[in-house]
């Protein structure tokens, strides 16, 4: 322990190398010599797309690697502990006491059959840090500091009795109970709705400021990171691309990849693709007083009603965005329109003529004209077929193509979504997330539809990849004269591609506006709350944000 006398960093990572063995026994290097330091009390953000190794690095700070991975080289030092040189037992001793972890999904991290308080103070019991009564009172203090309601009694509840945002804050309390020197936050707000995210971010920020412990914040979202981190490390493919203070990364990035990340954030207002508008043409899609729900039908109404009296029209060549938080019924709307879930009341009109509520009652031609694209390309493509077969089926089914002509058309479709022709021999499992989503889109295009329902198709993708998909959608629209109905929880995505926006809340349309007027002229309180909750690329955004607490109590699911 002869360290230098200038203020030494709390954490230093030197030339970290982490390798993994693939299922086929091949060894790959995931982390290729990463180096960074964290000063005491500082919050460092690790940012990058999926597969960049950000979580792997964060976990390695606890000396932990996921199954199949191993730390192959380099040094990780936390305080006086050399994590890489430690024995298993010594590592177990520092976990929870020196370094603690806040996982992405708090719902999965809590044991559903134990009371919350017992789980929060578990660390102190395992490491025998303090008597139980003291730990309990400390936990209550933390609950208060994290702005949790009913701090004295919330610990006596079970995990399913609190909301997602509360549970995430409780899992932070669990991490902080033992006064660790370093807390690792692994995408803690990614799974939360925007209105909930704000509260959680605020709580994290204030408690980290009080506690004086250092933090590592793993995220893919630059705007979120801008609110909480002091410094940012940009990762890609297991290598550090750029490192700097938050201000510097946001305002003066030097590395091209960082610039690309920032560019993906720039709002690009959508130019309407007004197709030579023939007068008095009927709208491509119209919904009139649509009601839908799930569960057993009783007296003509289902047990769980989701959609309540939804009406809208979508003009040909225009794009309609639907935004709302989880549980707002936006995906149900898409399913009801497509007839996958038949609405129990109301009607859907395609190009002026009424569609049968259930898809089994619709004609092949009706089905062809309206195609649906799902969020998760992983589950939307049959893993048992090649890409070529997946694209060929709708061609045979709708257009009766076979043999050479069909093959030619498959290649055309792949070209349309900017994929090489020989991609058709691959299985879906051999494609990346963005490529899968392109195939998913190409399959819908194979039907030569007039309307495409896009259900959160960019939500599971990395920022840069999602931006490319949006560009592709715009390009296809001008080429093929499509109309889109675009469902998303992300307002900026919707603004980038849509002409009109519907805001949904608890199964009802609370506001309908042209997209470019959304941020300024939205009048419904929920729309205002939703718009103001979207993080901006500005370090002072969270601190300066003021929201009406009554509104929040009324609409946010905190």
């Amino acid at each position, binding site marked *: 322990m002869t360290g230098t006398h200038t203020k030494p960093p709390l954490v230093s990572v030197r030339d970290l190398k982490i390798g993994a063995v693939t299922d086929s026994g091949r060894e790959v290097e995931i982390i290729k010599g990463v180096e960074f330091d964290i000063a005491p009390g500082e919050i460092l953000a690790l940012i990058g797309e999926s597969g960049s190794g950000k979580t792997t690095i964060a976990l390695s700070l606890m000396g932990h690697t996921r199954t199949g991975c191993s730390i192959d080289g380099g040094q990780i030092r936390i305080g006086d502990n050399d994590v890489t040189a430690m024995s298993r037992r010594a590592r177990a001793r520092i976990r929870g006491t020196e370094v603690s972890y806040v996982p992405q999904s708090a719902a999965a991290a809590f044991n559903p059959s134990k009371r919350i308080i017992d789980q929060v103070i578990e660390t102190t019991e395992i490491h025998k840090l303090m008597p139980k009564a003291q730990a309990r009172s400390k936990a209550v203090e933390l609950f208060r500091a994290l702005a949790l309601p009913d701090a004295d009694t919330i610990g006596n509840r079970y995990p399913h009795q609190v909301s997602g945002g509360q549970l995430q804050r409780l899992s932070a309390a669990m991490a902080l109970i033992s006064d660790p020197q370093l807390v690792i936050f692994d995408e803690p707000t990614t799974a939360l709705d925007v209105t909930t995210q704000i509260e959680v971010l605020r709580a994290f920020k204030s408690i980290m400021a009080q506690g004086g412990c250092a933090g590592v914040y793993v995220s893919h979202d630059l705007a979120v990171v801008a609110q909480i981190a002091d410094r940012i490390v940009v990762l890609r493919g297991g290598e550090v691309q750029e490192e700097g203070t938050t201000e510097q990364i946001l305002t003066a990035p030097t590395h091209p990849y960082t610039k690309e990340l920032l560019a993906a954030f720039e709002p690009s207002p959508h130019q309407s693709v007004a197709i030579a508008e023939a007068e008095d043409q009927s709208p491509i899609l119209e919904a009139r007083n649509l009601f839908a729900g799930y569960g057993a039908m009783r007296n003509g109404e289902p047990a769980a009603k989701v959609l309540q009296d939804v009406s809208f029209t979508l003009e040909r060549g225009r794009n309609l965005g639907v935004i709302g938080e989880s549980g707002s019924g936006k995906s149900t709307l898409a399913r009801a329109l*497509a*007839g*996958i879930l038949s609405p129990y009341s109301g009607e859907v009109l395609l190009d002026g003529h009424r569609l049968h509520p259930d*898809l089994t009652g*619709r004609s*092949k031609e009706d*089905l062809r004209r309206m*195609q*649906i694209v*799902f969020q*998760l390309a992983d*589950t*939307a*493509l*049959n*893993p*048992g*077929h090649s890409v070529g077969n997946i694209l060929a*089926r*709708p061609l045979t*089914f*709708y257009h009766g193509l076979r043999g050479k002509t069909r093959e030619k058309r498959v290649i055309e479709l792949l070209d349309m979504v900017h994929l090489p*022709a*020989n991609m058709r*021999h*691959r*299985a879906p499992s*051999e494609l990346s997330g963005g490529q899968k989503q392109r195939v998913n889109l190409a*399959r819908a295009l194979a*039907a030569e539809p007039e309307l495409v329902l896009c259900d959160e198709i960019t939500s599971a993708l990395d920022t840069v990849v999602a931006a490319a998909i949006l560009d592709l959608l715009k390009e296809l629209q001008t080429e093929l004269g499509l109309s889109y109905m675009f469902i998303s929880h992300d307002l900026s995505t919707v603004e980038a591609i849509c002409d009109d926006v519907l805001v949904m809340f608890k199964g009802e349309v609370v506001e309908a506006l042209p997209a470019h007027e959304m941020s300024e002229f939205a009048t419904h309180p929920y729309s205002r709350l939703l718009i103001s909750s979207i993080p901006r690329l500005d370090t002072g955004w969270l601190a300066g944000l003021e929201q009406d607490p009554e509104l929040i109590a009324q609409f946010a699911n905190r």
Partner: protein
Amino acid sequence: MTPVSETTRVSEDTKPSGPTFVFNWVGRVGLAVILFWALVALAGPFLSPYPPGEIVDWDYFGPVSSDYWMGTDYLGRDIFSRIIMGARYTVGIALAAVTLACTIGVVLGMIAAVAGGWFDMILSRFLDAYNGIPSLLFGLVVVAAVGSSILVLVLTLTAIYMPGSYRFARALAVNINTMDFVTVARARGEGTPYLITREIFPNILGPVLADLGLRFVFIVLVLSGLSFLGLGVQPPNADWGALVRENIEGLSFGAPAVIFPSVAIASLTISVNMFIDNLPTRIRDRSE
């Protein structure tokens, strides 16, 4: 038997050399043993040195000798010939029964999963109730009622093992049925036959084949049990299970008679499982 797709590659543009149908050596050994027994079953009459029912040695439980390669049984019949002829019954009946049981079970299971509703409910409850009848007892009653013949045996064994296969396939298919790609196909307007054969079946094939291997082994065992009770293959012919049962007393004389049919059963059942467990990953891991 690896280069299946090598020769079919005539397309002008480059087909990536992805994983082809490659077996590992364990799978190959399994397949070789299965093929061996299949050949033996087909060519039985030409291979066996003596008629299987003929008493050739007037001493019972004879030792291994140059005349009788595997010794003789409790009546002095040649074990080698009896095993070769027994292969026809064991391999033939078990294979036919398992194929029928799994085909019917899997097809019904997939239809039930896709169609759902009353069809699923009635079929599932009926087969559950049917499953409650003890299998050997059921076999006994049927064979006692209509008499024993190869066809009756195959159908009885099929009936015994079909419900299990149905349950297994239905459970798998229900999971696949909720996947988005099936929803997409349904939204395209595809009918049940397409959904079953093209969307669901490829994704449950791996587990279904593994189940088929296990079921095959059980069928061999139940067939042996029926033969022991005198309801299976009728004397003088015998399947392998019967050979074990009728020669089990020989153990106390140190006679080899019981060893060889046991080895035959073991080699077949183990190799079937070796083969199934080591199917090319292209087939096995599709569902993952």
